[in-house]
């Protein structure tokens, strides 16, 4: 690790100013990715900019329209300890409560998880399935984009120089809808997903037909993956095992994993199917509770 300066701006403007002072900057939210990367010389920075003192990035609220707005640096533990959020956005909690362990969750943020852009990140498929939008800021203002357009490759996001992530916005859950996230790890904690999957479904008035659906899978491609073919296999069909199995097959087909120390190609494609089906079962249960 090389020596660096530490700066902790109090406002977005201070942050933008510090980000354009010509130094290589590493943003620090919970630090559970970036500190490890700096220490292991996988990344170098002249300055580390701590975003945890910027109010917008630490704000967490359910908005007037019933949506959820999560400041980019809010720690996972703060999210899952909020009972109202836990009740209304259980799929967010699925992710927030399994990233790392308790100590990590006291620091780790969803913004950091998203910006770190790991193909195996445990919040991303769940956030994609819930149609999350990202609010990105820079000196010249803010822009919004759907989360699935944010990723450029393993560890690479589409932020431009001078930009930072301010907020994640999740729309209000529709009636008769539910979302669910799950992952597979060889151990029961402290592990990186071999594959993960998030799903959201909305049931039609009849309570049986799937009116809308979205499936996203992780650790099976250079970036987390939306699986439109899985949604197609679901929409208009009855919410049952046969339908879910077809969606699972679509996930397996969409997966283009690598083989490494964490898993083989065949295993990952198979798990993409299994976890998609399990995510859909969980989503269905929640959709029924939400009717």
């Amino acid at each position, binding site marked *: *690790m*090389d*020596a660096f300066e530490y700066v902790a701006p109090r406002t977005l403007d201070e942050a933008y100013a510090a980000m354009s002072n010509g130094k290589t900057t590493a943003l620090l939210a919970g630090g559970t990715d970036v500190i490890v990367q700096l220490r292991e*010389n996988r990344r170098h920075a002249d300055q580390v900019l701590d975003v945890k003192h910027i109010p917008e990035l630490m704000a967490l609220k359910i908005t007037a329209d019933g949506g959820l707005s999560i400041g980019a640096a809010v720690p996972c533990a703060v999210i899952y300890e909020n009972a109202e959020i836990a009740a209304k956005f259980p799929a967010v909690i699925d992710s927030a409560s399994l990233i790392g362990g308790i100590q990590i969750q006291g620091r780790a943020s969803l913004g950091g998880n998203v910006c770190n852009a790991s193909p195996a990140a445990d919040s991303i498929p769940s956030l994609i399935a819930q149609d999350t939008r990202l609010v990105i800021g820079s000196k010249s203002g803010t822009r919004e984009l759907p989360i699935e357009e944010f990723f450029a490759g393993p560890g690479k996001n589409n932020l431009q120089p001078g930009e930072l992530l301010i907020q994640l916005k999740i729309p209000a859950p529709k009636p008769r809808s539910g979302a669910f996230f799950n992952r*597979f790890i*060889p*151990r*029961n*904690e*402290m*592990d*990186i997903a*071999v594959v993960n999957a998030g799903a959201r479904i909305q049931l039609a008035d009849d309570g049986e037909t799937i009116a809308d659906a979205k499936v996203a899978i992780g650790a099976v491609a250079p970036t987390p993956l939306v699986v439109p073919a899985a949604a197609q296999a679901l929409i208009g069909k009855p919410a049952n095992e046969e339908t879910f199995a077809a969606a699972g097959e679509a996930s397996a087909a969409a997966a283009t994993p690598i083989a*490494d*120390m*964490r*898993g*083989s190609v*065949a*295993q990952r494609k*198979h*798990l993409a199917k*299994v976890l998609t089906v399990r995510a859909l079962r969980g989503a269905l249960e929640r959709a029924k509770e939400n009717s």
Partner: protein
Amino acid sequence: MTTVERPDYKIIGTSPIRPDGAEKVTGAARYAADFKPAGLLYGAILRSPHAHARVIKIDTSEAAKMPGVMAVATHTDLPAAADKVEAIGESAVNLKELSSNILAHDKVLYHGHAVAAVAARSHFEAEAAARAIKVEYELLPPVLDVRDAMREDAPLLDENRHTKVMGGQTSDKPSNIASHNRFEDGDVEKALAESDHVVDREYRTRMVHQGYIEPHSSTAMWNSDDTIQIYTSTQGAFGVRSLTSQVLAVPLSSIRVTPLEIGGGFGGKTVIYLDPVAAVLSRKTGKPVKISMNRTDVFEATGPTSGSYIHIKLGIKDGKIHAVDATMAYEAGAFPGSPVGAGAMTMLSPYDVPNFRLNAYDVVVNKPKVAAYRAPGAPAAAFAIEQAIDEACKALKLDVLNFRDSNSSREGVKMVNGVAHPRIGAEETVQAALASDHWKSPIEGPNRGRGVASGFWFNAGMQSSVIAGVNPDGTVNLIEGSTDIGGTRASLAMQLAETLQIPFEDVRPVVADTDSIPHNDVTGGSRVTFATGLATYEAGMNIRKQMAERAAKLWNCSEDDVDYIDGELHCKKDSTKTLTFKEMAAQQARTGGPITGSASLVARGAGGAFATHIVDVEVDPETGKVEILRYTAVQDVGTAIHRAYVEGQIQGGVVQGIGWALNEEYFYDEEGHLRNSSFLDYRMPTTLDVPYIETIVVEVPNPGHPYGVRGVGEVPIVPPLAAIANAIEDATGHRFTELPISPRRVVEELNQLS
């Protein structure tokens, strides 16, 4: 369960709080990396990015100019070491090879092999400078798998290595097979031919690491009078002293090694890596130099245990093991010295086997040189034989535990090395397993299964010394040289308290440095509570004798008329004359001065340890994940000195075995790069991955120890690999003969994926 009437012990068998507990719990205890003398410099090591390469040139000129850098060292700073073998506890090491493992000479032999070192004013400056050292390599093809390495046309790690065979001969052609040994008795061919059933299978295990929490760290001070002080994390301070003196070619007595608290070793801290390098950098700078490994260094460049290939033919006749024909090849890593011999010698020990032929090969590969790991060699051997037995029992519809009972080894049965077992508890552990609540409770439900396996470990004796000094207030300082890795301060203090019949809290154990106590062999081989315990007992008896002599003088009677009962001296002839231990202690000054008992010995008669384990698993066929539902470990411990620590040792061994069975493995890519050198990707079990491990402590006292002690620390890691594989077979109908039985392997097999 006890097999003989247990003496009426006061302290033995209880579970007092460890003397070193408060310091460790509060964080006050000092570990090697905490040691910071004034003027300390920090060392860093440059390691090979290649698995196999010739070192053409090392250019340290840029590094030497980097900020903060005080010295640079390469192998040219180490004197040429003798080509001779030195014993270190349960294993042995060739000094020349040790020296080239510490800093590579003309070749690097594994990814992570140390090449050069730097000392700088800060750790980060040292790291940066190490990265600035330029090394020119000529790449050579790596050999990673034990069977590939044995092929005639395999690339050679050392062109001058020939296979040593029993009887002192060597092969004509150079080879990666460092040695080939054979254990044989009876007529195996005939016995297999006449067997009712023969299991013929191959088994494979992968290289695994002990996974101790504390990375290696050493600080050396080379003083201007050429004395050297070393503060380090080790299982054997005397081993560090002797190996370092030979690698540096300095007199043994010029080195003083202070062992600091140790955060785990399991055999991996019986060798040296950093100490001579820190010493050389200290000599060059005149300052103390500390080198600490990080987790990646520990995985890449310390000693894990061997990956193995074992081929077994097991013949059963009339419900008895009739013949075993086995070929066993173990990876030694970069230099010879795998525990294949111990694997062969332990494999059949739980049983009475009339005909056997075991061929054992020690094979070098481009991976780190292995070191001892808890019962070195035995778990892989048990993984093979205990599965073969399970398979045979299932084929012949025999109960797996009853079969083990009726084939059990016992006193008088010879091991494969020709040595007959003394009184052992092999049958007793199997019988206790048969009687256990676990065995008697049914296992029900889909995808669930139960497995059992047995195991054996020799345990070691070797050299120990202690000094016990009585304080005027009646407490006793117990000075020992066995580093305390598993609670031995407590287990030794308990034995002294029992011998002197004084309260446990009145014994103050201290682990001394190498200048302050005579020689002690390593803390390894489950030997300390046994061997240093024996020395402690003798020192205690020695104190009792001196006290009796002094009482006799005070009382004007003969020494034979003084009894030592319940920590009190009594005059047989005059019941009014008594002295408590404390009163006698207070009289030391006027009865002849301080009373000191000491003992130095080579302990013989380390009783072997046997274990039988039962495990229930549930397998998720969709993901391949195996959950351990229930685990019971039955073990003959001789006499449990500190009951809770005995149970802790058993539970710890089982947990390491669970990790080895299910997830742990050194994962190399084709070029020989270690790809999982972190606890994230080298998956040891967490607390959430293991159930409470139930223990059944069987006590068949070891006749070789006054309190019946047997080593307990190692054998619990022997049965789990096979027990779990057997349980998974029971649950799924699939037999997994290759470790780890990871979710990947299981899901691929159950779903026929690849």
